[in-house]
């Protein structure tokens, strides 16, 4: 059976960090390269922020669930779901970065909003850490 992680937690802002760390340690066992791992955590982190920030606006606080699955060559899939209400909102300048970031990172993204919100993200099969590692991937010339 595939490796998987499923955690449900009350949708407090404090749980985002704990859930990201749990996901990151889970992905670490899959020998994923650090860039892919961090990107997946970033994308999942944005979906979590949305559940914590929007899902239970004006209603009793519910839960958020993080589900992660690795299936060898099929890659990694992540589902972030809540039982709140998806809020349709006009674009406000300086807002709305979350889902675009998710789309920039994930191979495919599907969002269901019938009962609460369920964001499913698929990522490429993890590249096993290469034996020769690129240690510094940032631009070291100063300005990015």
């Amino acid at each position: 059976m595939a490796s998987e992680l499923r955690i449900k937690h009350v949708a407090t802002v404090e749980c985002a960090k704990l859930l990201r760390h749990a996901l990151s340690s889970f992905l670490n066992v899959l020998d994923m390269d650090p860039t892919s791992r961090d990107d997946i955590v970033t994308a999942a982190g944005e979906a979590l922020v949305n559940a914590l920030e929007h899902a239970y606006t004006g209603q009793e606080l519910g839960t958020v669930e993080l589900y992660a699955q690795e299936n060898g060559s099929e890659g990694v899939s992540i589902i972030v779901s809540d039982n709140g209400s998806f809020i349709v909102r006009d674009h406000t300048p300086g807002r709305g970065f979350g889902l675009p970031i998710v789309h920039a990172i994930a191979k495919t993204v599907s969002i269901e909003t019938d009962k609460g919100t369920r964001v499913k993200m698929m990522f490429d099969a993890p590249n096993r850490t290469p034996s020769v590692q690129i240690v510094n991937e940032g631009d070291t010339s100063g300005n990015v």
Partner: protein
Amino acid sequence: MNANSTFDTIALAGELDIARRDEVRQALRIDGPGSGILVDFSEVVYADSTVIAQLLRFYNDAGELKRRVAVLIVAPQLIRLLQYAGLSEIFPLFTERSAALNYLSEVGDKS
């Protein structure tokens, strides 16, 4: 580096996420005109889009007050986050302190 340059520094560290939004908002506040500002995120290891929103607002506020801003970021996650958000060309981002300080001392927007 220009030894004469003066600037304010706003430094944050660790994981800047939604749980620390109030703290980030407090830190990224501009009271009025003044010198250039170094936003020192060299010790930040993670940030989410709630930080991006604050940073963007801060950068616009500073611009209105003609205060130069340099953002120092080191963590690859943060660099990529801004790229994914399409903002890496908008902010004056630096991965080296000396380059950030040079940039702040370049122009005399100080009062």
